[in-house]
């Protein structure tokens, strides 16, 4: 029975009923079902056919985002109404920490793939060691370099000469975005992006320190700067992609270099956007509604942890995708 009064124990708030979960479930499902249908229309569908896949996807997405908005809003309202015991607050902390850990493991899969193709698969395809014995037969003339400018398919003169399964044309890029040498480093966008993101981690920390001291003005200022730096990063990343597609002949399907480059930087960029939105929400809460106290500011803290995580991933990217 609820309502026992136990002086040294706060009641753990368990909401009795909630429609949030079923809304989130059905709208997320609709979104992904729509997305899958869009992709299937595009890849396997008849040209010019009429389907409502995009409609399903967009309706699902809008409703899903609306559900998330309501959900987070309600959580904030509950906390501000004092319904959350310190124990419940700690549950949120644990939840966020393990969520970030799961994100780390997601990126680990892509970094692992990059390591594997660079250190094992690439040399094997070029004939190194026991595993490379079939090189003469399958990919004669293929030499391994990184960034891989010439794919095995290029080396044998195109998909027509391929004796293995035909997965389509896989041509290497014309140019890559790796470290261009010290003389050109001034035009190298990733360097600026690195400086921007590391700075933004510092400014996020300064905002946190200001918050802990109860300095609302400093907190708002430095958090605002952090969000601005995040948006600047996204803009530069957009410029870089534009440059890659328009000037460098570097596409998502430019062999394994294009694949790993765009997937790693792309997922990172997506996470930067999410992190920036999270920080922006905290900034709005702080500037418009004066949320957060030095003792109670989980939303801020969780967003800044996420931001630091995104930053650390970038450092890994900068090293393994751009420099080494």
């Amino acid at each position: 029975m609820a309502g026992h009064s136990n002086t040294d124990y706060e009641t753990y708030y368990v909401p009795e009923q909630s429609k949030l979960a079923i809304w989130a479930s059905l709208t997320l499902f609709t979104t992904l079902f729509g997305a899958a249908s869009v992709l299937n229309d595009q890849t396997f569908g008849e040209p010019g056919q009429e389907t409502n896949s995009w409609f399903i996807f967009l309706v699902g997405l809008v409703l899903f985002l609306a559900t998330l908005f309501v959900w987070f809003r309600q959580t904030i309202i509950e906390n501000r109404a004092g319904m959350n015991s310190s124990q419940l607050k700690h549950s949120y902390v644990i939840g966020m920490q393990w969520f970030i850990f799961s994100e780390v493991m997601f990126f680990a899969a892509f970094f692992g793939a990059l390591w594997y193709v660079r250190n094992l698969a690439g040399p094997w395809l070029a004939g190194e060691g026991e595993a490379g014995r079939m090189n003469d037969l399958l990919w004669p003339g293929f030499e391994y370099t990184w960034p891989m400018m010439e794919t095995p398919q290029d080396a044998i003169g195109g998909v027509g000469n391929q004796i293995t399964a035909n997965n389509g044309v896989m041509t290497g890029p014309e140019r890559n975005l790796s470290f261009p040498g010290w003389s050109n480093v001034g035009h190298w966008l990733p360097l600026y992006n690195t400086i921007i993101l590391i700075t933004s981690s510092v400014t996020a920390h300064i905002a946190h320190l200001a918050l802990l001291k109860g300095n609302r003005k400093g907190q708002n200022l430095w958090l605002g700067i952090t969000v601005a730096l995040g948006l600047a990063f996204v803009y530069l990343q957009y410029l870089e992609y534009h440059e890659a597609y328009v000037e460098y002949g570097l596409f998502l399907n430019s062999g394994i270099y294009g694949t790993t480059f765009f997937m790693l930087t792309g997922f990172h960029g997506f996470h930067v956007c999410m992190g920036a939105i999270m920080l922006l929400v905290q900034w709005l809460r702080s500037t418009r509604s004066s949320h957060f106290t030095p003792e109670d500011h989980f939303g801020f803290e969780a967003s800044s942890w996420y931001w630091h995580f995104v930053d650390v991933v970038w450092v890994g990217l900068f090293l393994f995708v751009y420099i080494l």
Partner: protein
Amino acid sequence: MGAHGPAKGLMRWVTTTNHKDIGTMYLWFSFAMFILGGAFAMIIRAELFQPGLQIVEPEFFNQMTTMHGLVMVFGAIMPSFVGLANWMIPMMIGAPDMALPRMNNLSFWILPPTFALLASTLFMEGGAPNFGWTFYAPLSTTYAPDTVTFFIFGVHLMGASSIMGSINIIATVVNMRAPGMTYMKMPMFVWTWLITAFLLVAVMPVLAGAVTMMLMDVHFGTSFFSAAGGGDPVLFQHIFWFFGHPEVYIIILPAFGVVSQIIPTFSRKPLFGYDSMVYATASIAFLSFIVWAHHMYTVGMPIAGELFFMYATMLIAVPTGVKVFNWITTMWKGAMTFETPMLFCIGFVFLFTVGGFTGVMLSLAPADFQYHDSYFVVAHFHYVMVAGAVFSMSAAVYYWLPKWCGKMYDETMGKAHFWISFIGFNLTFFPQHFLGLAGMPRRIPDYALQFTDFNTMSSIGAFIYGASQILFLFNVIRTIVAGKPTSEEKTWDGAEGLEWTVPTPAPYHTFTTPPDVK
């Protein structure tokens, strides 16, 4: 807090945040999936009853093996243990509910639409996924049916559900234990689930990464798994099994936990070597991250890799052996009785050990070249999955059903269920060892004549095992509808633990104020 009892009608289940309601939904959902996956298995065994093609086309047969594996692993076994965790963990550690109740409901409600979609691919153009539950590239990329896209997003959804469920369990165990319930006092089931949840959070994102790479290869021309572009199909296997091997422990560790709860009860002795059980579980979890390539001995790895993965795999036999010896030592000189849950647990210890030994055989790289992709492998993992996970799940249901619904199940029918399952199971899978050693490959709809007798036995066994599950369902429903009411707090006189201190049937809310644990 508002109302104390559950709401009425369908909305009770849709909007609930109660760990017992959500646990119940998980358990029923997983049983429904068990029946569905079982139906696929029956089609497979019916086709293999005799050589030649009689019932299904080879293309459809491939869809059956794939869907059977996917539905059983992701729809039946995993959700069943999550259901058990939902029901039991808060009661075992003296918590009022799970740590994040609304997210808990979301974790469940993602599953029904996802599996409805997966099942509906059977009726879509091009047919259901047909590339095996391990979905190796390029079968799942270059040669995949169009429905692969729905499969990929389905895996993303299941993964999201599992990750949220696991984070919830970690937060509950770390944060919600009653005062005095230290880590080393936690029931083994709670320990094994804590470690399982950690494994899930660590590897489900990697699986999400693998299917995302597939998605890009299929729809956007990337070359993760295409040698022509500089990638490698073997890369898929590495990423998949980095998830896949921990996955088998995700399935079996909660089963270990269940058995470690039940054997002491019916031996009327505390669990032998509790501390060593905890450390063994943790060691198994650690080792599970460094053995994945034992699934890939024949793929052409460098010799150093073969050796490393072989020795690391064999090491797992040590902590697993610790567990088996501990269960046997717990029974040693105990005042044992053999109620249905105990029968299933003893069956588990015997048959899981058989599966463990064939696992050691398979871990030997040179020998594995013989066994690889044969029915020996099929026999091995069904000894672990069915006689391991499913037997322990049956034991758990009989063991806690009186606590859940305040009614006693029919012991005679329970024992009949056990013996028919036990015989049916062994008749199905023991001959498959011989089939594999004699060279019958897995995942084929037709076979050479010399394999006929063992296949016929195996199919008859499968029908018996399948029928025994109907008996199980009947017994459970009969218990809920017309079972003999019981209100004893402690259903079993040897049972220990907080769940046996609350009234029977367990009230809707338990431990709204924490109990004192000595």
